[in-house]
């Protein structure tokens, strides 16, 4: 019966085709061009239909189309995603030109939700979407930077100025008291692992004092130019479909796909140069001389004048070349892209090189009942890292050496050799020269999916994806440097590697129907299996024969001759237990006359990480929406073109903690030993976040002012917590579910304004602001009922070893500063510091804001994006222990503020509230001026040239390099927040670029 029905359908279709072909002899051909009313740019892929018939086409790369229509057709209907539908009269015309107006309320835009898409007007949850045209411009090293300050409640902090550095991403506040609490990334339906295959490295072991090196960004292999849209699922109604992994929010990345039409090639290129955004305020040479004189320390004046911060910087040209090809027909589309880029960082020798390729295709068979989609992303990245570690003690940080270097001492002697050290400070230029750390990572993300329309309203889809990354890192520190324990006269080398493989299998069934003429229904059911493996190893050695004297250096790195080393540290291998997730999920949507919408989701998630009886967690959510403006009584309203009220409630889970924590394990820790390493807890279960979201979407003044307001309250409980083990025990910690509550609540506002909309001139404004409050409640020990106090936030440097500056404790926000109070100076200008530390402030920003402006005058465009964070404190660890006044008495350079304080130069390094500063800042993230040349000559189309500035300036009272800072100062994997310590400085990047289409 089914087959018969299929056959009937096919026959009809064939008849239709034949029929239209039969009529084609009498047709007339109409050509035209569709442009964007905003800037006259071509609208690619717009659908052009002859009204009253099924005949249609879509526009090509230059916005043009050609369509043959029956003579009786008088009107064409033009639609395109993101634009209002328009009809145009073609009677008596052979060609037309039409400017589409962007749909202001964006109500029709397609939003990617879990395992499907929805129109924005049908959403009941809090989902923010950012499309390619709204992304941050300028220098973008990784996809997350596209979004900075674009979405209310999404906080993205680049942890380091090193190109390719990891970012700290928090959606609606600090949701975890573990180190790993980044959101889940989903790329074209494939959930990622979140870890990177670039090996981590701690250069603070084996007697070396260089500290832990910053992590890299796990999304480096995703080409920012390939991204069409990013959706951020913020509340339970939208994220619960990802169940276990949605608690920290979900970031869904959709890549660009081919459009039907002739093959087009897009070329984007840019070149840029980097400088300091803001320098750290150390004394200039003349100020330093004055300070030496004032303190009778002129013996330290060597008579020269150097600027170390300038010397460690480079201004090498960044280069970006991106080509994409796309094309296809109604039944087969493809897109391919290639990116080659070289991004030298601000500091000498630091560089990120990327070679990325992607190939996606979408093909339809069996009268479009069967769709086959595939995507292939591969990338090779090379990171040249400099030694700017998170936790270096007194030595081994390039920035620290530059800040401390006596500016009267030249870097080289008269023979051109480095003056290797001066007053216990390493020569920053020599340090840069002697340190070589290169990480190469290959990544591969492949996915293939097949959808089959079982019925017109029932579709089955299967997806398989594999993501593999392999990285090798070669680290060489030459032994000619002097004054470094564990290095000088010996040399030090590490070969480390890491591999990560994750696989996804997903099956979904999608069904939609109209239950009656007023009520439609859609349902989704699915099964997913996800598996991930991770391993790493490293081999370190010291005691080489070469490069121990700067006069006789050879170019062979230690890592190529590691067998030459006298001391081979024990090689270390680590293999994570395999993590498996298995999930069943379902979603139903009801829509009553577009007035009332109801979404319910449910997900059952099983994870191998948990105890045998608690492997499954169940995540329900419900969301409802009342579109008030669709009610009859509102139809006459001239004020509101859209007004909708949303409410959602639901649960999401979290299993981001080390695998293996539920099992007793015996490891092979060192030569000839076996020992127990884990305190097993077989009753471990999911951490759950329950959240409520109430929102209003509105669109005023014919859609010229639009936006959303959301209130949320999130309550995380059964917190996966590394508790102090009950001694005697094989480890100092173990994982439990702590029945505490981590509360995040806040309000978000997103606004858009089409301030001016004229033929030659337009001005659009986007503004968002979010307030979040973070609080830890009921944080008591399960055994004793006593409040738990977790000290964390390492304060590093000489003289402050072992100091911790933050606590995670009951009644405070996560990572509350906990410091001794600074009470001023005594009569001898000595610091007075309280005996005991007390709570001292919140490191979590309370208010985040973003503002974007787009101005167009004819073909000239100006885009300005700014953002800021307010209401939080930063601890300046650099001023505490690197540039403190005492350094002057040892002939090192110091902080201007230390001189200005008038304190005694004998004051030692001590951590206190003196170095706690307000973090509030406003940063001009980027400004771009572009000129849309348009088509030139026969082949060159859509030529666009621009100049763009990234990190142009920051307005702040914070005295360090950049108030947007989060150096990882975790203690025993308890995270830290907002501590600055001799960071890689933020670069100001000016790029010049051009885009065109062939």
């Amino acid at each position: 019966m089914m087959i018969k029905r299929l056959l009937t359908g096919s026959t009809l279709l064939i008849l239709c085709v034949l029929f239209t072909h039969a009529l084609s002899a009498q047709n007339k051909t109409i050509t035209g061009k569709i442009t964007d009313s905003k800037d006259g740019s071509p609208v690619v892929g717009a659908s052009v239909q002859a009204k009253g018939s099924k005949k249609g086409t879509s526009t090509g790369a230059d916005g043009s189309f050609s369509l043959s229509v029956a003579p009786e057709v008088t009107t064409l209907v033009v639609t395109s995603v993101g634009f209002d539908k328009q009809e145009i009269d073609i009677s008596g015309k052979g060609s037309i030109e039409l400017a589409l107006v962007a749909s202001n309320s964006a109500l029709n835009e397609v939003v990617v939700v879990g395992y499907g898409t929805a129109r924005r007007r049908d959403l009941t949850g809090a989902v923010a979407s950012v499309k390619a045209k709204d992304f941050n411009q300028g220098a973008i090293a990784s996809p997350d930077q596209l979004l900075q300050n674009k979405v209310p409640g999404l906080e993205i902090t680049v942890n380091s100025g090193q190109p390719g550095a990891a970012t700290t991403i928090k959606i609606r506040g600090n949701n975890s008291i573990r180190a790993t609490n980044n959101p889940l990334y989903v790329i074209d339906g494939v959930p990622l692992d979140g870890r990177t295959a670039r090996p981590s490295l701690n250069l603070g072991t084996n007697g070396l004092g260089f500290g832990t090196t910053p992590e890299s960004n796990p999304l480096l292999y995703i080409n920012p130019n390939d991204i069409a849209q990013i959706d951020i699922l913020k509340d339970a109604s939208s994220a619960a479909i990802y169940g276990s992994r949605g608690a920290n929010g979900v970031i869904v990345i959709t890549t660009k796909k081919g459009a039907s039409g002739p093959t087009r090639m897009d070329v984007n290129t840019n070149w840029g140069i980097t400088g300091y955004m803001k320098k750290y305020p150390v004394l200039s040479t003349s100020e330093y001389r004055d300070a030496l004189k004032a303190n009778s320390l002129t013996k330290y004046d060597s008579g020269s004048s150097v600027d170390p911060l300038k010397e460690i910087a480079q201004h090498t040209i960044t280069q970006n070349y991106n080509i994409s090809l796309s094309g296809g027909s109604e039944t087969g589309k493809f897109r391919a892209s290639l990116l080659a880029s070289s991004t030298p960082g601000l500091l000498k020798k630091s560089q990120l090189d990327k070679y990325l390729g992607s190939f996606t295709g979408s093909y339809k068979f069996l009268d479009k009942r069967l769709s086959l989609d595939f995507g292939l992303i591969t990338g090779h990245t090379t990171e040249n890292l400099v030694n700017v570690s998170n936790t270096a003690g007194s030595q081994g940080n390039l920035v620290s050496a530059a800040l401390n270097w006596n500016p009267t001492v030249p870097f080289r002697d008269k023979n051109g050799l480095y003056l290797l050290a001066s007053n216990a400070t390493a020569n920053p230029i020599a340090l840069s020269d002697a340190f070589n750390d290169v990480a190469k990572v290959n990544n591969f993300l492949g996915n293939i999916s097949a959808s089959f329309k079982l019925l017109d309203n029932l579709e089955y889809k299967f997806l398989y994806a594999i993501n593999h990354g392999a990285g090798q890192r070669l680290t060489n520190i030459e032994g000619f440097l002097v004054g470094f324990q564990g290095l000088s006269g010996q040399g030090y080398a590490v070969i480390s590697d890491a591999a990560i493989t994750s696989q996804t299998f997903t099956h979904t069934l999608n069904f939609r129907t109209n239950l009656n003429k007023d009520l439609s229904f859609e349902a989704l059911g699915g099964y997913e299996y996800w598996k991930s493996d991770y391993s790493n190893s490293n081999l370190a050695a010291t005691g080489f024969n070469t490069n121990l004297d700067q006069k006789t250096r050879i170019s062979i790195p230690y890592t190529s001759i590691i067998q030459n080393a006298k001391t081979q540290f024990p090689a270390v291998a680590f293999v994570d237990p395999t993590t498996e997730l298995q999930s069943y999920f379902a979603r139903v949507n009801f829509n009553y006359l577009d007035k009332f919408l109801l979404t319910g989701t449910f997900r059952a998630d099983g994870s191998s990480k948990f105890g045998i009886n608690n492997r499954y967690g169940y995540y329900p959510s419900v969301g409802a929406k009342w579109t008030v403006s669709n009610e009859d009584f509102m139809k006459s309203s001239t004020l509101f073109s859209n007004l909708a009220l949303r409410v959602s409630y639901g649960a999401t889970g979290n299993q981001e903690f080390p695998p293996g924590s539920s099992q007793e394990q015996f490891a092979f820790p060192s030569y000839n030993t076996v020992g127990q390493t884990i305190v097993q807890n077989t009753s471990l279960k999911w951490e759950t976040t329950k959240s409520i979201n109430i929102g209003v979407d509105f669109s005023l003044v014919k859609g010229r002012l639009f936006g959303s307001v959301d209130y949320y309250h999130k309550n995380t409980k059964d917190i996966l917590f590394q508790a102090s083990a009950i001694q005697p025990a094989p480890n100092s910690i173990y994982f439990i579910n702590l029945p505490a509550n981590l509360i995040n609540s806040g309000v978000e506002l997103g606004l858009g304004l089409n301030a001016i909309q004229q033929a030659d001139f337009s001005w659009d404004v986007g503004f968002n602001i979010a307030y979040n409050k973070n609080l830890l409640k009921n944080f008591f020990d399960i055994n004793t009922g006593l409040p738990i106090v977790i000290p964390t936030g390492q304060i590093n440097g000489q003289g402050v070893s072992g100091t911790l500056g933050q606590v995670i404790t009951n009644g405070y926000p996560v990572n509350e500063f906990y410091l001794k109070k600074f009470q001023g100076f005594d009569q001898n200008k000595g610091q007075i510091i309280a005996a005991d530390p007390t709570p001292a402030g919140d490191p979590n920003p309370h208010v985040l804001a973003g503002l974007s402006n787009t101005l167009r005058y004819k073909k000239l465009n100006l885009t300005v994006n700014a953002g800021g964070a307010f209401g939080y404190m930063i601890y300046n660890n650099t001023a505490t222990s690197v540039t403190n006044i005492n350094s002057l008495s040892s002939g090192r350079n110091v902080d201007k503020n230390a001189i200005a304080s008038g304190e005694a130069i004998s004051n030692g390094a001590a951590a206190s509230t003196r170095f706690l500063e307000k973090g509030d800042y406003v940063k001009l993230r980027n400004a771009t001026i572009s000129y849309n040349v348009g088509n030139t000559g026969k082949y060159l189309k859509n030529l666009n040239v621009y100049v763009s500035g990234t990190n142009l300036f920051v307005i702040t009272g914070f005295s360090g390099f950049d108030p947007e800072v989060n150096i990882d100062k975790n203690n025993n994997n308890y995270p830290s927040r907002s501590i600055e310590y001799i960071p890689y400085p933020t670069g100001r990047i000016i790029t010049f670029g051009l885009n065109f289409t062939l």
Partner: protein
Amino acid sequence: MLPLKKISIYAVPFMVLVSACTKLDEKLGNTLTNAQTVNTLGSAGPGLLLNFAYADIAAPFTAQDQVFSLTENVTDESLVPTRGGDWDDNGVWRVLHNHTWNADHGQLLTVFNNLNKLNYDATVVLGFNPSAQQAAEARFLRALACYYLYDLFNQFSVRDPGDNLLNAPKVKTGTEAITYIMTELAAALPNLAAATATSRPTSASQDACRFLLMKCYLNKGAFLNRATPTFDAADMAQVITLGTTIMGNTKYSYTPNYFDNFSVDNGSKSKEAIFAYANTSGVTVNHAPIEGRWNMTLHYNSYGHTGQSIYGNAGWNGFSTISDFYNSFGAVTPTTYNPIDTQIDRRLGGRYYVGSTDISGIRPGFLVGQQYDEKGVARQDRKGNPLSFTPTIASNMIETGTNLEVTGIRVVKYVPDFSDTSGKYYSGPAGNWLMLFRYPDVVLMVAEAKLRSGTDAVGALTLVNGLRTARGAATVATLPLVNTNNVDDPNTLLAERGRELYWESVRRNDLIRFGVFLKPWGLKPTDDPKNLLFPIPNQALSANPNLKQNPGYN
């Protein structure tokens, strides 16, 4: 409306795929489950697990911020003054010497956890069918951990093999605690190997066990009443009996050169090692970071020369001793550089030591006054002032003057490992063995027991004079136990213990047993009775409800 039948047809392959689901049993990466450890390692298992427990000794007993700190920096033997930008470290060192610590002190927690890790890992061995000797060694190691926990915190817990680690174990304190340790040691003793002329002191021997038992008998009255210790005659008799047995073992004698007990080749040269932890120069496998013992005290410029890569990198310029303790060696004028050794008591050091003085100029022992390099050229500090260590330390232990790099007498007990002439081990893994139990302590304990029991004061004097003679010091005619009015009175048995065992992590225990831990001494003007015990670290207290905070810390 809805062709359910059709759906079911199409849903079949879907359901098949769905039902092909996994059990989600976690597969371990490079570790074993308990059962695998039993099955795959077989008879080798207990030995490997025992090795792991032995390796646990390195962490708590070696570095400068572990047991060493809690037993030396709280006494008259050691302190760490803040020197300008160095060694503030949030005041952790000053509060130890000041006796103003609290239960948040980070060193307390790491020591508590590290000792308990040894306690636990030794217990694990017992669950894997060890041989009688392996079981005895594991019980000895566990008793060692418990002894130190008891000494520092007055309470400890022991788990049974296979315990559910999520349950809070019972806590032993008071008589139960000391009885437990002594019963365990007594049970282990017969199954341990006898120490022979060729046996290595790195495994628990019968003598090591006897040594720890002696400590228990000697300190029992002090453990049970730390404010006013009492000494039971039967306990003292036990100390004497056990000590006499050890002294009867011809394996032990006084090492002719005192510093050979602490040198890079002390593993072969020392005749006094009863229990030790082995290191090998340049080998990092299971290495105890012994190099910290000289780094912590030496100045940056203590060895090497301008232009050499090692120069300016010799030490961390921290740990010092107070002049009163230094003077307890018998009012010696500060040593001056002289190739001819003239000092009386060799333990004071200052003598030419081959392997150190010829390479660096460093003369092991107490470093006072001008320091010289190996050629006799005076060394300078980083400011260009003479590197000349002065006895006086600022009263608040915060040095702010121009001499802040040179205040305080330094102590080089472990002789720096200069065995690699290319200089590669100057700061790397050093080969000195860590001395845990040393023969002279046995002699001094026996002498002390004789004095305390009043049975054989003459014998006690003979033993002490025997030791003094071996060290090149003059004999003494009388030997009072302690002068409660002057902790650093040189003419006491306590002072003799200080001279022999300084910076060997016994001082706090000695001062409590001799009843003078709360007395004022250099840079510690006042005290509080609660300080006789350390507080239970807050994190440990909040994990185990059976632990009770020690009096005075709530």
